[in-house]
């Protein structure tokens, strides 16, 4: 048994290294469009990874995370337009804005659960959307916040790293993506993560154990909001604009979709879901203008065939193949 665990850990380390190496080498051999899509996948991946801390971690289904994504985007936008164009400080400002908003919305929302939690977060998210849409003088209304530049990152001693080129910005996105992946992994396996899992399985029992369930839920909500804010600010740097539809419920539904596609019980699920989501749409769109129809059919097949999410099913198959040894 201990041998198995060591080899398992080794295999996992090798897999992670290979994954990182593959991601890092994308700009070396891939075309510009693939680099761009890879960035979109990673940004969606960060959004979904954080989101799944809430959905997979505590079982709470939020339909308002677009609001935090938008807070990150507009937070970075305002910061870089009015205070400092430093991208890293901008990202920090975006995350801070998202966390503040998540704290406010979460405070009112976490007392509900299930569908009522979903609808409450939907309502708050749509209020943020309406606010951005209506506060035209500050936010630019439906035109969005435009003209946000991707300035160089200043380091110590006056050295600056330019990220204006996509192939360079890619590495910043990759850095944050890996950081998020690592952070989510750590959170899931921390005592805090175990409490969350306990709440998901049985909230009453956790409450009896003397833990304030609501505070834990709120903490998970704010943390997942921070990841949404990070994703939003990274997208704003990528596309140089922030727009009200980032806060719309249709956008809030994206991490839900992606997490479910990949599987909410695993760490890698949301990432695999993000890859599938972006790649599937791109491939379908190359063949037909009726992309919605085919995308819908593919979704249907995945839901009916892979009910535990793609990663869950693949893992089950792998376990079955290993068969007698695993048993």
């Amino acid at each position, binding site marked *: 048994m201990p041998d198995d665990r060591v080899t398992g850990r080794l295999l996992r380390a090798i897999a992670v290294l290979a994954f990182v190496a593959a991601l890092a080498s994308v700009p070396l051999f891939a075309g510009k469009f693939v680099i761009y899509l890879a960035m979109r996948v990673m940004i969606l991946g960060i959004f979904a990874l954080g989101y799944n801390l809430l959905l997979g971690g505590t079982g709470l289904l939020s339909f308002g995370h677009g609001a935090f994504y938008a807070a990150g985007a507009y937070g970075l936008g305002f910061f870089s337009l009015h205070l400092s164009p430093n991208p890293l400080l901008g990202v920090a400002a975006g995350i801070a804005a998202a966390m503040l908003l998540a704290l406010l919305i979460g405070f009112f929302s976490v007392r509900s659960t299930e569908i009522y939690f979903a609808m409450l977060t939907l309502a708050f998210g749509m209020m943020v959307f309406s606010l951005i849409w209506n506060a*035209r003088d500050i936010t630019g209304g439906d035109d969005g916040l435009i003209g946000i530049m991707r300035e160089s990152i200043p380091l110590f001693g006056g050295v600056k790293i330019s990220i204006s080129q996509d192939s360079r910005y890619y590495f910043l996105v990759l850095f944050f993506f890996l950081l998020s992946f690592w952070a989510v992994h750590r959170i899931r396996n921390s005592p805090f993560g175990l409490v969350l899992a306990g709440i998901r399985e049985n909230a009453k029992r956790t409450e009896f154990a003397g833990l304030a369930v609501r505070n834990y839920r709120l903490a998970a909500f704010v943390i997942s909001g921070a990841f949404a804010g990070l994703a939003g600010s990274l997208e704003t740097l990528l*596309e*140089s604009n922030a727009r009200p*539809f980032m806060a719309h419920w249709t956008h809030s539904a994206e991490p839900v979709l992606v997490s479910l596609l990949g599987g909410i019980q695993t760490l890698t699920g949301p990432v695999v879901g993000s890859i599938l989501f972006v790649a599937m749409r791109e491939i379908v769109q190359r063949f037909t203008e009726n992309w919605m129809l085919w995308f819908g059919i593919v979704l249907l097949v995945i839901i009916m065939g892979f009910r535990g999410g793609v990663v869950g099913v693949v893992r089950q198959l792998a376990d079955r193949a290993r068969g007698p040894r695993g048993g």
Partner: protein
Amino acid sequence: MTRKRISRRELLKLAGTGTVVAAAGGLGQGLLLPRNLWAAPPKIKGPVKIGYQAVLSGTLAGYGEFHKMGAVMAVEEINAKGGIAGQKVEMEFRDSTLKPDDAIKNARYFVDSWGADFLAGIDSSGQALALAPVVQQLDRVLMVTHAATEKLTEEMVFKKGIKQIFRICTPTYQDGNAAAFIAKDFPAVKWATVSPKYEYGFTCWKMFQDTLKKLKPGVPFVAESFAPFGTTDFRSHINTILDAKPDGLYSTEWAGELISMVKQGREAGLFEKVKHVIFPVGAAMDVLEGLGKDMPDNIWIAGRYFFLYPNSKTNGEWVARFRKRWNHYPAYVSETGYSSIYAFKAAVEKAGSKDTKAVIQVLEGMSMNSPAGNRVFRKEDHQAIYDVAWGKTKADPKYPFKIMGEMKVIPTTVCYNRPPFEGPGTAPPF
């Protein structure tokens, strides 16, 4: 392998003739294109690839189809007559979904993956503005065929110098300023609006008010009701208008929302109470056909183009060809889509190259004949200048929908804002 050798031999041959032609041309044209004397021949290489995107899903999907009809028809015609500078035109059409992020993704796909030489389309202002820095980075000309925001040409092109953007359709000046010139002749004194609750609606209403105030000092504006995107029930908005008892109604509602508003307005007696009505985008084919005889008479309507104007041979023949090909009257986006392809053709052939810089140089100030009449791309802001008609709705036994009677043109020289777009003398009246 064989194909490659042949093409190389051909290339050498072409290089030879090219130099001769260029040298001969150089004698005649003076020093217009001096680089031809020593650089590559002006013959363009490979097909001309155009990436076109418009909305093909959701409630406005009909607009995308109309864009497509116009653009596809232009590509078919051009290819049947030998293409652009002897090269085939290839077009790929994508759903823009009205979302800025999808528009950016499409543009990047077109250029970075598919290898597009030119970009065209775009319905929403938000998309156009978001795309501006992207097309600058991609360095491809984007010909906007529907989005109307003046910020695109004033701020992005003129102030920020994003030269890759051109607009072939009319901007908000037409919907706002020109409408005020129509309104000034009415005996109406009190105005109200039901308009879309987004930048387009706000901007046009503001332009209308600003211009009308200057033309007719002291004119009161008594009510405004802005309807969010996707409104299907206009009854409360109509109540707001009826309560204010205006004599004039100005509305930049468009597409399905205009159809719903007119139908519900009729039911509430809106057009009996308010005598003077202006719909700056009411002359869209989907609206006219959708409303049929439900469109009230004597309403002033306009569009980015209307198939009965100008009364020219080019236009008449085009409308006939369009109807034969698609069994439809052309919508305004069909005309702008169609003409955008021909604008590329004219520019590439004149520049002798698909190179973005060369094409921009030619397009600036270029004049072209199109179904909508003569278009000139204004050098400073890349806005196409062409006149469109206003008219009063009336029934005509020849058509199953209302058409424009009593047409009137507010010349662009009168109603378009002028560079530098700030300070006195840049906004009408001049």
